[in-house]
């Protein structure tokens, strides 16, 4: 417990702004911070005064001044939430909602590197042991380490991630079939040509290598085009969804690792399909290939 160096209290509640700016009040008003989206939707700016109440049906409200406009952080758990956020001083919200001296949650910061093995503060409790200590003596509330909260709040995106992987697997199967089909067609088109080359003395191994090389080049070229297309699509996806959800969160990322995986996979598919197609070709007698 001695490791606690700062505390914040926050009361969650629903606040309804009942009127847009009508006039600027004096400097004595308390300040609030509003969501950037609310500012845009209601035409509010820093310095404007608004009257707000906890319920839309409240006969009167409190006048406050907008002291800041906040932008949503890149938090996956926030993007599906469409409601606007207003931040105000704790005591003012308690008074506005009439809940008295109550809070919804509070956050605790432990010393940096606390609990880490070998750290200077190795004897100081870390987040896990602090939350365990709080839970041992708590009644009516529960402490969660930040890492646990992060896992919980990112559950939505973990599910979406698994879904994308599944779609990726189906796409790879479809691509493999497509590539094998195209390679077979290309090889079939050149049956006479290959038959003639075989009759001239070209070895089976050379035919197999040339077909595999060709399929690999097609796969490489296709994956290079695909990487470019993916980067462009990713930019469009980010631009579109960042606008839709008013968030700086990046929805699609094309990293060098992803490109490397895609190119490697594509190359492997190309080599395998080239090999299978070439095997069909070299197993056929040269005379049969030339149509005799």
């Amino acid at each position, binding site marked *: 417990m001695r490791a606690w160096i700062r505390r914040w209290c926050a009361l969650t509640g629903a606040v309804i702004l009942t009127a847009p700016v009508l006039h600027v009040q004096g400097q004595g008003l308390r300040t609030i911070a509003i969501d950037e989206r609310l500012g845009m939707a209601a035409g509010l700016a820093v310095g404007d005064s608004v009257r707000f109440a906890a319920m839309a049906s409240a006969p009167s409200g409190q006048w406050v001044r907008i002291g800041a406009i906040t932008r949503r952080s890149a938090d996956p758990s926030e993007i599906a939430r469409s409601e606007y956020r207003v931040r105000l001083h704790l005591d003012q919200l308690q008074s506005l909602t009439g809940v008295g001296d109550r809070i919804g949650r509070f956050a605790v910061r432990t010393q940096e590197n606390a609990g880490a093995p070998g750290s200077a503060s190795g004897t100081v409790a870390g987040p896990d042991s602090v939350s365990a200590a709080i839970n041992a003596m708590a009644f009516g509330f529960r402490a969660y380490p930040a890492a646990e909260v992060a896992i919980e709040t990112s559950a939505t995106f973990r599910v979406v991630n*698994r879904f994308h992987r599944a779609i990726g697997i189906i796409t790879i199967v479809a691509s493999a079939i497509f590539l094998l089909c195209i390679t077979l067609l290309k090889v079939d088109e050149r049956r006479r040509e290959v038959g003639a080359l075989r009759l001239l003395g070209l070895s089976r191994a050379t035919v197999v290598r040339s077909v595999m090389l060709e399929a690999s080049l097609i796969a490489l070229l296709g994956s290079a085009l695909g990487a470019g297309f993916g980067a462009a699509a990713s930019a469009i996806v980010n631009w579109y969804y960042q606008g839709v959800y008013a968030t700086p969160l990046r929805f699609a990322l094309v990293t060098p690792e992803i490109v490397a995986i895609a190119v490697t996979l594509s190359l492997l598919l190309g080599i395998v399909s080239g090999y299978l197609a070439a095997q069909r070709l070299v197993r056929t007698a040269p005379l049969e290939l030339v149509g005799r």
Partner: protein
Amino acid sequence: MIARLALASLTRRRGRTALTIAGVAVATAMLLDMVMLGSGMRESFRGFIEQQGFQLRLTPRGTMPFDSEATVGGAQALVARIAEDPEVVAVAPVLGAKLFTPRADSVVPAFLLGIDPAVQGDYVLAEGRDIAAPDEMVVNGAWLEATGVRLGDTIRVASGYDAQLRRFSGEGSVRVVGRGRFMMLAGGEKVAALPIATVQGMGGEDLRDRLSVVLVATRAGADVETVGRRIEASDARVSALSTEAALRFVDERLSYFRQLAFILASVSLITGFLLVTTLVTVSVNERIGEIAVMRAIGVARERIVVQVMLEGLVLSVIGAVLGLGLGIVTAKWLNEILSAFPGLPAAFDFFLFEPSAAVRSLGLIISCGIGAGLWPAWRATTLSIAQTLREEAVA
């Protein structure tokens, strides 16, 4: 004869025909899945809402049902006033609260619904019997599993904590009489239902004569939106949310999946189209001499067109039929992945099979197959017979 020729052409290279059919099957499966995803969420949610039998939901002004802990006071008077509306046939008040069940070494928290057992629309009874007394409770399977309580047991529960005095508040004894399937709550969520008057009593002054949501059933043929506006006008504390408005809200929340479904469905269609076009084009190129001979001996252009397009059609139909089966299997797999989505009702389906979706997918793929045969068919009928025969003879 034309059909036999088309089939003979396809069976000549069995390997690549099989591969093309497999490619079309995968494309159809993806297309079917995406069509199911595009409409499934909406229809699944509509099913839930309509199963409740209420067309309107009234919430504290500016909130969605149970999105916040906001409540409305004067519950009895509000319900009585709404019931007076000539278009309203049933009114079901609901109050959301917390329920704490102390066990030997822990406390099981749960979501508590205060309902009117006579008109409730929140759960369907799966086991036991419904609430018939103020101290009787219906719970879901997750709650029974977490607490180890059995139907028929009488237990102590509480609605809150008094942290300063370190004791429970709103304590009482209840008898668990039934297990229900709560339609709108997430799968793993523990939930219990008690008569609303009991929940209001357990909550003390904070919940006295208050409610969170009012479900309203209107008479058949009534204009639900008009009834909602009339109720909103009569009481400024509530917002009315119709089934259609709720569906629009769900559409907005899950728009990502609809857009993804549209993009992937388009990609699947293009892939299927390209695959069939490529195969039929190559097949026509290989048989260019054969087609020229057929033309030279008097076979009409129309018959050549029909034969080439029939090849594309056969590939598409066989691939599409196989793809339907594959699509249903993959939809089940994808649905299992998405069913872990936090906060969604357990029985919510992202992929809902509807015959119309299957017909649409089949129709699209078969249209693509017919379209895919157009270019090679045109090429086959416009070739110069003499030149082609000469080139083939030289080759």
